[in-house]
């Protein structure tokens, strides 16, 4: 075992250059599975969405899902790929309890899409990520490990398998190795997955809910000494399923690998697992036990030959892609590229756009998503999109503030309620009694009480020290527990003291 210590990130870069690469799996949002008619609904009771085909029972025959093929071609087109004119499925043979057939139906040397690219931006700099291939395959079942510590496979006594997920269409998007990112490697990795996710959302081919595992990335990282002509040995961190974790896993691997190399040891080519809680990786299955998948063409499926006319039609019908949309929105919202980059980094472009579409002014939508909501997502350690609040609810919140029903401070309390699942903002205002007080008897009483309770301050104000009124406003806000409107309170105080 090599040194457990990690090298400081900045120090890593004084000696080594990283090369990263990503293999991203996307569960398509089709209604039925890849090769059979079983439903793909998430969260169904275990083993209620299976049939002879996806269970691999003898005599069953697969038939490819037309919508999944179309979705894969559209992803390829959006990434600027070449679309194959003829390709086949292949069997990837291995035994594991989550693949009922003893092989995964995948694609091998004839992927549907090849040779594309995706440009991502980090801190104003554009990095071109070359896409090696996009191919179509099927997802595996889900293992539940019993008898070990906290459901981990290590130390488990036995495992339980749910095959509902087995056979759901899965698209694998593989980048070529990405050199030359230096200190930005972790951010480029995150930016790539973020941009890919935006494209998939724009295409409407997947729900891309990372927390449900719709999108998961295997993140390859290697280091080589600066100036070296050869790339180092890489590790592959499997199934990283949040944008934040993609960045953290690269950062951690760079620091860990630097420590190993500094100690004069070799990096093991292996798969590793990322741990959300500690932000670290640990070794998984070693690749030294050479994988031998004995791929061969799937005899039960005929080749796929997308005809040119169809592909052209799909290309013409592609929606506006995120990069073009961002350029347009920057102009519509009147914001700079840097401000747009903040939104992109926060994963907030779509959220803000939907909030605006739901009626909020762009500036307010941005303020809430980049401010209060970003802070809460960060505190909870989740991506912005995973917060339990919808753009429509944020728009409603903005509307309530604009109408004077609540102020910003109350709005934050309303948000507490929305995030706690108490309903839409107006309902939370109602149930928690959070509306701003009008010039009610209660507020008049509070204002009068503040003047009576602070005669010295009141006298100063009367004597011309107008700014001293702030202390009285504060007193009123305190007695009304923030529910009064500060401007109204100030005006009422001034009417009484300066008239």
């Amino acid at each position, binding site marked *: 075992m090599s040194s457990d210590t990690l090298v400081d990130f900045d120090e890593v870069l004084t000696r080594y250059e990283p090369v990263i690469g990503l293999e991203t799996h996307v569960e398509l949002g089709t209604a039925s599975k890849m090769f059979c008619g*079983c439903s793909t609904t998430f969260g169904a009771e275990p083993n209620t969405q299976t049939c002879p085909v996806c269970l691999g029972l003898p005599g069953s025959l697969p038939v490819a899902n037309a919508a999944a093929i179309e979705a894969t071609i559209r992803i390829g087109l959006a990434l600027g790929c070449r679309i194959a004119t*003829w390709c086949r499925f292949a069997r990837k043979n291995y035994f594991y309890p989550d693949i009922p057939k003893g092989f995964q139906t995948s694609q091998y040397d004839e992927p549907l899409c090849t040779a594309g690219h995706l440009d991502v931006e980090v801190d104003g700099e554009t990095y071109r990520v070359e896409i090696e291939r996009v191919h179509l395959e099927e997802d595996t079942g889900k293992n539940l490990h019993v008898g070990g510590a906290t459901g981990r496979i290590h130390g*488990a006594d036995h495992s339980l398998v749910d095959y509902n997920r087995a056979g759901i269409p899965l698209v694998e998007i593989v980048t070529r190795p990405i050199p030359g990112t230096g200190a930005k490697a972790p951010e480029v990795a995150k930016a790539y997955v973020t941009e890919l996710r935006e494209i998939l959302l724009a295409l409407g081919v997947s729900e891309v809910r990372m927390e449900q595992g719709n999108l998961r990335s295997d993140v390859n990282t290697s280091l080589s000494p600066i100036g070296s002509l050869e790339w180092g040995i890489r590790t592959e961190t499997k199934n990283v399923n949040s944008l934040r974790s993609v960045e953290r896993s690269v950062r951690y691997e760079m620091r860990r690998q630097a420590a190993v190399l500094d100690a004069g040891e070799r990096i093991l080519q292996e798969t590793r697992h990322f741990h959300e809680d500690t932000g670290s990786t640990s070794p998984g299955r070693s690749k030294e036990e050479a994988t031998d998948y004995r791929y061969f063409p799937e005899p039960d499926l005929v080749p796929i030959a997308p005809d040119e006319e169809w592909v052209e039609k799909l290309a013409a019908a592609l929606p506006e892609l995120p990069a073009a949309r961002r350029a347009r929105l920057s102009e519509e919202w009147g914001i700079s590229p840097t401000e747009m980059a903040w939104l992109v980094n926060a994963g907030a472009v779509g959220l803000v756009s939907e909030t605006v579409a739901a009626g909020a002014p762009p500036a307010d939508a941005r303020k809430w998503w980049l401010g209060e909501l970003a802070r809460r997502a960060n505190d909870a350690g989740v991506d912005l999109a995973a917060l339990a609040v919808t753009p429509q609810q944020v728009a409603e919140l903005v509307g309530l503030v604009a109408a004077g029903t609540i102020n910003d401070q109350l709005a934050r309390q309303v948000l507490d309620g929305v995030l706690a699942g108490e309903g839409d903002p107006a309902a939370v205002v109602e149930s928690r009694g959070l509306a701003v007080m009008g010039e009610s008897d209660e507020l008049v009483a509070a204002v009068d009480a503040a003047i009576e309770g602070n005669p010295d301050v009141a006298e100063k104000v009367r004597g011309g020290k107008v700014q001293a009124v702030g202390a009285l406003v504060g007193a009123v806000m305190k007695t009304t527990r923030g529910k009064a409107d500060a401007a109204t309170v100030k005006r009422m105080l001034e009417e009484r003291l300066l008239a």
Partner: protein
Amino acid sequence: MEFRPSMTTLSRNDVAHLARLARLAVTDEELDLYAGQLSAVLDAVAQVQKASVEDVPPTTHAVPMTNVVRPDVARPSLPRDVVLAGAPAAEDDRFRVPRILQEEA
């Protein structure tokens, strides 16, 4: 697809490797037996290589068809009790399988 030309002889190691991939417990005597038998099978298949195929396009399938697809429509699945009735063991509505990872020393 990778195509390996006839090797005509399979070694004991080749057979042991294949057996391990197929999760088959093969005894030492069987390794010798199967190495001989499988080599004979390979030889038989290798006869194909003698054919002149210059003018023959590669064939994937016995039927010259492409794009056999079905519309994306969900259909009823099997009832769970029927599904699990075929499992060697079931627990909590799931297939029960033996320990996956062997403990390492």
